[in-house]
């Protein structure tokens, strides 16, 4: 069934875009207006998605045997959750603390055997601190976060 994720998602996106394009202002006197091009693309996308879904239904046995090898590790959702936490963390606690926490957590997920001091201390602090100052040197100021903004 995993094979259906992309065509179904793409189909839904195409429908949303098609509907939204229908409400765009139409300018007269031109061979095309704002909606023509995106609507043509969405129609083609919908046809392709339907084709992929039908193909899956017809050949589902072939796909099922291939899909047995494709197993989702539950830790992938943990990694995804960490990415989202990093995103929200930037706004509130700023770049350095959230990136340190993110690197520690990711190293912990990927670790094999005992946790190493390099992965849990040196790498996160060195990397996030180093990147912060490199970007500052380049004139790009990474977020300090709402919590620390008043301190600096």
């Amino acid at each position, binding site marked *: 069934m*995993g094979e259906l*994720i*992309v*065509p179904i*998602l*793409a189909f839904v996106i*195409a429908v949303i875009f098609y509907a*939204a*394009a229908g409400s*765009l*202002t139409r300018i007269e006197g*031109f*061979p*095309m*207006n*704002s909606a023509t*091009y*995106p609507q043509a*693309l969405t129609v*083609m*996308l919908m046809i*392709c998605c339907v*084709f*992929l879904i039908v193909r899956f239904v017809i050949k589902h046995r072939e796909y099922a045997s291939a899909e047995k090898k*494709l197993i*989702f*590790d539950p*830790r*992938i959702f*943990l*990694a*995804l959750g960490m*990415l*989202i936490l*990093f*995103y929200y963390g*930037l*706004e509130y606690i700023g*770049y350095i603390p959230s*990136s340190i926490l*993110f*690197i520690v957590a*990711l*190293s912990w*997920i*990927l*670790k*094999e055997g005992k946790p*190493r001091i*390099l*992965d849990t201390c040196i*790498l*996160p602090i060195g*990397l996030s601190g180093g*990147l912060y100052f490199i*970007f500052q040197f*380049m004139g*790009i100021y*990474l*977020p300090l976060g709402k919590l620390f903004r008043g301190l600096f």
Partner: protein
Amino acid sequence: MHPAFEALGFFVDPLGIAMLFAGGFLGTLFSAIPGLTGTMALAIILPLTYALPKEAAFILMVGMLGGTLYGGCLTAISINIPGAPGSVCTTLDGHPMFKKGKGAEAIGWATFASFVGGTLSGLLLFFCAPQLAKFAIKFGAPEFFTLCIFGMVAVITLADDLVKSFVSALFGLLLSTIGGDLFGILRFTYGTRFLLSGVPIVPVVVGTFAISLVLREVNERRAVQENAELYLETARNYKQMKMPPLNEIIPRIPLMLRCVLMGTFIGFLPGAGGNIAAFVSYNVEKKISKHPEEFGTGIIDGIAAPETANNATVGGILIPTLVLGIPGDQFTAVMLGAFLIHGLPVGPLLFRENPVFLYVVFWTAIFTNVTMVIYGILGGRFFVKAAALRKSILIPLIAIVSLTGCFAATNQISAIGLGIVFSIIGFLFNRYKYPFAPLILGLTLGSIIENSLLQSLQMNQNGMMIFLERPASLLFVILSLIFILTTFIKPGDIIKRMAEKSAAQKRLSKNQ
């Protein structure tokens, strides 16, 4: 002053030199580490180039392209594990030579052949691209439209599954419609300020190529780099490479020249990259050799041929990318996105508006080969050792640099959110074998396609017939049709079937 001489000024500038060496280093490093690719390196580095002048940014990126084609040979020869697809063929003779105790000579030959291949194909690019551009510069809206369509067709038809590839392209094209259009109307922004000027390309590229790697690695549970012990052991015993002596080089000049031509030509064809060039040249050289039986046993010709051809693809890949805006592979598809980021036009207009910049790119394609030799001599051991780097260090490093890069590109936290969304899309695309290149190219060329279509239709009352009335435009339509047809009817397969049929008939007549 001729723009070619003016462009040389960037290579005496400390920033230009630093970028040239940094590009060569990063390209070599990423291609030496199995599992990482040059495109991934480019995706990670792309946001960082914002702060650089466009010339320095492209010295870094083109330098990287050269490095990505070279680095794979180091692990291919020493460990029999090619770091990059273009070096697979090098294992055939490279590793047997290494096992015979001639590792220093093997890596020396691979480095020298890469240098020759890259430099000569860079020279071909230098002289051929401007000639082709003289023709392309006369293009109007109909030619631009059909050219972009041809570029899309060329990239879509690279994939095994045409429908999945088309879905990827349509998704990219649809994304390109977000933001303000030609009429000044905002489309699909849903009140988001972040999307007013369209979907920023950096978070899309970084998300699909680099951040999605985090999800893939977590899913595949590979904490320790496979064969890490073997890499470390090889690095410990690594001997300084030996550059080949003149008496070995001179008899192989015709071989290398043939491979340069084959590599450049194959590189020119969309989708046929270093891997194909290496195997084709290896087979051709084996066929015309006086001692074909020695190929595969660890001979110099078996290293010189694939490595020369592999690196010679650089010139071939860059000609259609720079002159026509048609990328030959994933790396150049992402590189086209970099043109937009730096406010450069894609395709023929580049030659008219930025000649000095283009010569900077040409010189980089030539000079980057010097950095390869230096890294081969000084850093061979380091690159083999780097291939053993633990995933628990490597992946967080890639993740945090990529996420930070998303922010740096737009100065908005929303870009990181977009990067995360595209990492999920990248993960799903990778898992269910949807190619990335059509998506990136669709996003890059989408607005050009729409604008040139509108302009073309306004130019002519006959509607779509305008694309068949102009010679260059008709040529691109025909080429697109040929590319589509050859995905269904493969000439190679027909020839193979005919050969098999005639061989069977011969056998039958012999038996009778």
